[in-house]
């Protein structure tokens, strides 16, 4: 509520529509990429994942940034509150993803190379 006096109605509304435009364009790009699946993006691997998937994830985080900063007004909150929310989430989620994906990859190897047949 600290910002309602510092912004006139016009500029705040303009910002909302600009962010909406950005989110829409990014979504359209994602869908187009997802439908045509360019070969050079699906055949290039980066850190064990197809480049196309990296692009999807980066675009998603880009969208998430705009939703959190513009729509959820994080850009107008104090640094302390913003960091408490964002860094907690980023730290815990990256940790969880790292652990679970590593473990999932390991189990895949066990299924594949182990002496027990799983498909009989």
């Amino acid at each position, binding site marked *: 509520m600290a910002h309602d006096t510092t912004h006139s109605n016009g500029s705040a509304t303009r910002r909302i529509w600009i962010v909406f435009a950005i989110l829409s364009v990014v*979504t359209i790009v994602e869908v187009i990429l997802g*439908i045509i699946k360019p070969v050079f993006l699906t055949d290039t691997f980066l850190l064990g994942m197809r480049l196309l998937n990296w692009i999807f994830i980066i675009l998603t985080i880009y969208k998430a940034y705009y939703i*959190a900063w513009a729509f959820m*007004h994080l850009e107008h*909150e104090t640094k302390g*509150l913003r960091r408490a929310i964002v860094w907690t989430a980023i730290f815990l989620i990256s940790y969880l993803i790292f652990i679970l994906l590593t473990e999932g990859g390991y189990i895949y190897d066990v299924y594949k190379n182990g002496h027990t047949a799983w498909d009989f």
Partner: protein
Amino acid sequence: MEATVVRTGTEGKTWGGGNEPLKASYGKMMMWFFILSDALTFSGFLAAYGFSRFKFIDSWPIADEVFNHFPFLHGVDAPMYYVALMTFILIFSSVTMVLAVDAGHHMKKGKVTIYMFLTIIGGAIFVGSQAWEWKNFISGEYGAVTTNGGNILQFVDSDGERVALSDIAVPIAGDRVEHESNTGIWFDAGEDLPTYSLDEIKAGFIQNEGLLIRTQKLTEDGKKTILSREESLMKLNNDANGTVEGANLTHNEYGAPLFADFFFFITGFHGFHVLSGVIINIIIFFNVIIGTYDRRGSYEMVEKVGLYWHFVDLVWVFVFTFFYLV
């Protein structure tokens, strides 16, 4: 929010309450911490999805083939168009929500009312769309044959186009009939009969020389493996043990049952959030109409439900990526 603050008589003292160390009111900060914890719940689900997917990295269903329906375009292969539309609807309802919050800052009751109403409509359309997605997923499209190893065998013609069970099956008379309560005195429970028995599928498959079997295994370029005619016949005779149409929590015609489990659980949990968001929005909408916040002198309550609503949108952005795109 002044109306709900309890006066303790110790205002102004550091520990006397009413402090706003992060310049956010108590309610707003708690909404943020709730959102943070809810975000961790959703990341738990999505990370578990990633775990299962990595576990079956070479046999996971291809989303484009699963979610390819669009209303009124029957039989047309429309991968992702509908879910992209749903995403737009949800993002747009987020926009109307933030416009309502903005109008609230300027104490414009009429505008808040209109924008809240549009937000509710958007949310309702989204939940309805999700129900439609579920319906398509549950009823399935082509059907498949299950194997002893718990895998799925799908059918394609020589061009690689999918063929439905209904186009393969040759009716065989004298097959088992469904046991129903009106035919037995001691009826307790009867197993549902599949639309097509395995024998009918086998007979049809042998008759039609052009048919091939497609397994769950993904090739190097991310397509499903198609077996030769001889391999197909051998696979069908040795491994097949039943037929499946559509998907539920234990059977899934699209591939790994885990895919269906996560689909139901994650989109269901998200859909429940949208539903509760719509209900909360409706409550706030009526509060706006009867002038509660006008009298209170602050529309912060709209801002707080707005935070929740944007969060639902935020989660959907991730679900969209990990379920439909990646």
